[in-house]
C-alpha cells in the first residue's frame, strides 16, 4: 500500500533510550542560518550564504514528569517517527539525532482546569563538524 504523502501524529519518541509517551507535538528544525554581505554603496545584500546550520528539536508531552527529569546538558540519541497519514508503517519517517542531541531545557506548564504539558528543547552537534546530525529514514 502506497503512502499518502502526508503525515499525522508521532510514535516511538525516545531520548537517550528512554521512551517518551503522551506526546502531543514534536518539532525538528534544520536550523539553517544565512549571512548577508553588503559593502560600498550597497543598500541591499548582494550575497546571501548559508554558512552554518544549528539543528534543534523539541518534544511536548503530557508526561511532564519524564521530561522534567531530563537534566540540562544530557546528551543522547533523540528519535521520533512521524506516522503516515493512513498509518502505513513503511511510509512513516524516522527522524533521528544520533548521540548528539543535547537537552537544553524543559518547561512545565499547567493552567487551571487544563492538562499539564511540558516541552523539552534540544540542540544538536556534529561529531566531525561536517556531517549533518539530523537524519531521516523511511520507517
Amino acid at each position, binding site marked *: 500500500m502506497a503512502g499518502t504523502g502526508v503525515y499525522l501524529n508521532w510514535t516511538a519518541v525516545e531520548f537517550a533510550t528512554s521512551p517518551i509517551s503522551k506526546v502531543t507535538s514534536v518539532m525538528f528544525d*534544520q536550523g539553517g542560518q544565512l549571512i548577508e554581505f553588503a559593502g560600498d554603496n550597497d543598500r541591499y545584500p548582494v550575497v546571501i550564504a548559508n554558512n552554518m546550520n544549528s539543528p534543534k528539536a523539541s518534544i511536548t508531552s503530557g508526561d511532564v514528569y519524564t521530561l522534567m527529569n531530563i537534566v540540562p546538558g544530557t546528551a543522547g540519541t533523540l528519535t521520533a517517527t512521524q506516522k503516515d497519514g493512513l498509518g502505513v508503517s513503511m511510509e512513516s519517517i524516522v527522524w533521528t539525532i544520533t548521540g548528539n542531541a543535547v537537552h537544553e531545557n524543559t518547561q512545565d506548564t499547567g493552567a487551571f482546569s487544563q492538562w499539564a504539558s511540558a516541552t523539552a528543547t534540544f540542540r544538536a552537534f556534529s561529531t*566531525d563538524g*561536517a*556531517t549533518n546530525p539530523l537524519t531521516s*529514514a*523511511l520507517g
Partner: protein
Amino acid sequence: MTPTAPYADALMIPESLKQGSNIYERHHSITRIAESLLGVDRSRGERAYIRKQGGRPAMLFVTKDRADTIYHPLKSPLQGHPRYAWVDHPGAIARGYLTEAARKEQDAQRDAEAKAHI
C-alpha cells in the same frame, strides 16, 4: 580505487536526483537508489539514513548506520581525515568505501558498545 565489495558503505547522492511531487515520492526515490546500492535488508531492521548536507550542488550523505560521519570524529586521532575512499559513478552518485583505519575504529567502537551492554 577499484571497489571489490558488492555494496558501498556510504553514498553521496545529488539532491537533484530526487523525483516526485511530494515529500513521500521524493524521499522514496532516494531511498530506492540508496537501499539497492548499500545492500539494505529491511527484514533485518536496516534502513538507509539520509542527511541533507547542502552545498552546491546540494548533496545527501546516506549510510546504513545512522551514527556514521563523513570524516573521522573530532575526538579521534584521525580527526578531519575522510572515513571513506570515494568512487564516482555515472549519474554523479559517489560511492564510499570505509578506509582500513575507519573500519578498525568502527570495530573497536562496536566492541566497546558490546562490552558496555554486558
